[in-house]
């Protein structure tokens, strides 16, 4: 009896012990799309694009939402209003004949400065075809009454009367993410101008954010609007690259930000192996 009990006990102990840790993944079909020397455009792997109802947590909906964010900032952003995506609630994607892909999104966006949220319905169209064509976006944003209007016009007035020495300010002003409070409106302007570029450059295979407003300078102008020159560094998440852009843009409280000239800069730094310093 005792022996049998011991055996039963031993078996039960074994069963309740450390769970199996399966090691190798299912032996796969050798992945045919992987050629060691190719530079995989993410598009190649994603030939079958998500269609129909989208999972709001998955990247197709999240990337499209980011494009909506850039669009909203170009239209509604100001030195005192910066918009961010908060949550994607639902989405839908479909092919449009041979011309491109259409998205429909329901999301919540956030005024980053006042931390107020609102829902937003958006429609996007990513055109197919040669070369980089910017996506088309339709989305509305409710400009609730905040004191941002007053602050914007005060700020504009301040800049018109005194072309402050903005040259060579790096924003955030140090590598630790610190920005002086009175520099924040300039940082926001840099982000807004960058939003034009981020919007233009976006595809279903990119996710852009501003990594750094490297430099922003106010220029003298006879016009009513204010004029700026800036150099920003964009982070493209999918490739993980940092892309430098120079922009000439105007801003007025009435007209918002308008990018007049933009130029992508080559990143010479990376291409030079120099003697290492220790």
């Amino acid at each position, binding site marked *: 009896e005792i022996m049998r009990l011991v055996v039963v006990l031993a078996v*039960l102990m074994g069963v309740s012990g450390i769970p199996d840790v399966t*090691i190798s993944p299912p032996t796969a079909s050798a*992945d045919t799309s992987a050629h060691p020397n190719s*530079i995989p455009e*993410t598009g190649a792997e994603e030939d079958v694009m998500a269609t129909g109802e989208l999972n709001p947590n998955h990247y197709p909906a999240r990337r499209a939402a980011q494009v909506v964010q850039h669009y909203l900032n170009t239209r509604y952003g100001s030195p005192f209003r910066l918009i961010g995506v908060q949550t994607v609630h639902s989405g839908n994607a479909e092919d449009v004949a041979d011309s491109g892909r259409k998205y429909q999104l329901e999301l919540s966006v956030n005024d980053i400065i006042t931390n107020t949220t609102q829902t937003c319905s958006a429609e996007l169209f990513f055109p197919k075809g040669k070369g980089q064509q910017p996506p088309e976006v339709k989305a509305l944003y409710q400009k609730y009454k905040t004191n941002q209007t007053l602050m914007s016009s005060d700020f504009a007035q301040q800049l018109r009367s005194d072309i402050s020495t903005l040259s060579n300010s790096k924003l955030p002003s140090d590598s630790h993410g610190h*920005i002086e409070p009175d520099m924040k409106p300039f940082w926001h302007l840099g982000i807004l101008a960058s939003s034009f570029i981020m919007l233009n450059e976006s595809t279903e295979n990119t996710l852009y954010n501003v990594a750094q407003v490297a430099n922003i300078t106010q220029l003298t102008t006879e016009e009513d609007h204010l004029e700026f020159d800036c150099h920003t560094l964009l982070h493209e998440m*999918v490739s993980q690259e940092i892309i430098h852009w120079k922009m000439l843009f105007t801003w007025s409280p009435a007209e918002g930000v308008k990018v007049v000239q933009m130029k992508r800069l080559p990143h010479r730094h990376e291409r030079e192996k120099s003697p290492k310093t220790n």
Partner: protein
Amino acid sequence: MLDCVGMSFVLLLSAVGAATVERAQYDYYKYHPMSEITSWMEQMVKDHPDVVTVVKYGKTYESRDISLLKIGLNTGKEKKAIWMDCGIHAREWIAPAFCQYFVREILQTYKTDAKMEEMMKNVDFYVTPVLNIDGYIYTWENKTTRLWRKNRSPGPEDCSCYGTDLNRNFDANWGTVGVSFDCCSNTYPGTKPASEPEAKAVTDFVGSQKDIFLCFLTIHSYGQLILVPYGHPNYTAPNYNELMMVGKGAAEAIWKVHGMNYTVGASPDVLYANSGSSRDWARMQGIPLTFTFELRDNGTYSFELPEDQIQPTCEEAYSGALHIITYAHDKTFSGAVANAAVTLWSILLAAGVTGATLM
């Protein structure tokens, strides 16, 4: 003359005083250069000699020691392990800040928290505050280097750029997806799997004792994500459901701290496909619970997260990591023990009943 002596004495005293005060007040809510992190590691050993040791397990390309802190109570028994590494990518400064915070936190809580004390008895924590040391130091050089990602090895001879992406260099579906073979690219995976000394240090150290590891956490920024293996879209981890359940539990724990949303999923679903990551390699070794944490923020400041966000980020990430660690621990320790105990008692009771009847 006496005045001079007196002054020197006062200066000496205040210097000693300052040194003592400084030592007691390492600022976990500021970013620290590598030299300060190295001193801090030594100080942790001095302050907790019975629980903390430094283990050097490799050298970077520029010949710096790669070290971790091994933290646990000495029981003389064979122990299991938890792995955490920070700073595989040089520009992700919030990650090393979190590793330091994590160490401080477990060392503070185990003396008063019974659960942490239990875990410290059963498990050793292996924490590498900065894995890509050369890269991290490079990002501190000047403002133009701040956004460097890769290590600082020179790459192939015909290459005009430095660096390999360490998180594409591990032997896990190496070189298949999410990489670029342009050696100037930020996702350049190296010349072959584990070609980079920093990656090789991890694979040698963990690989030689993989059976002791219950859990492998690798800390990055930004994006507010908890990623589960695998990065390759054609592969699913055998315990995917468990990983998702535990990951979601961690995200919920994070949300409870400061209301921040972290999305949980496999990388090809929620972010992008990739290969050669440390997390995938660890899972393929059989370590059951492997996760990548992408900390704050969502893109507003991206890599240059302001110092006033270090504390809340670390607090929430600690909560999330602890959820996973506790699960991993309990699965092996309390869980099995409890099950076995219940089993044993029910058998003994049954035996007692039948025995009585038989006799």
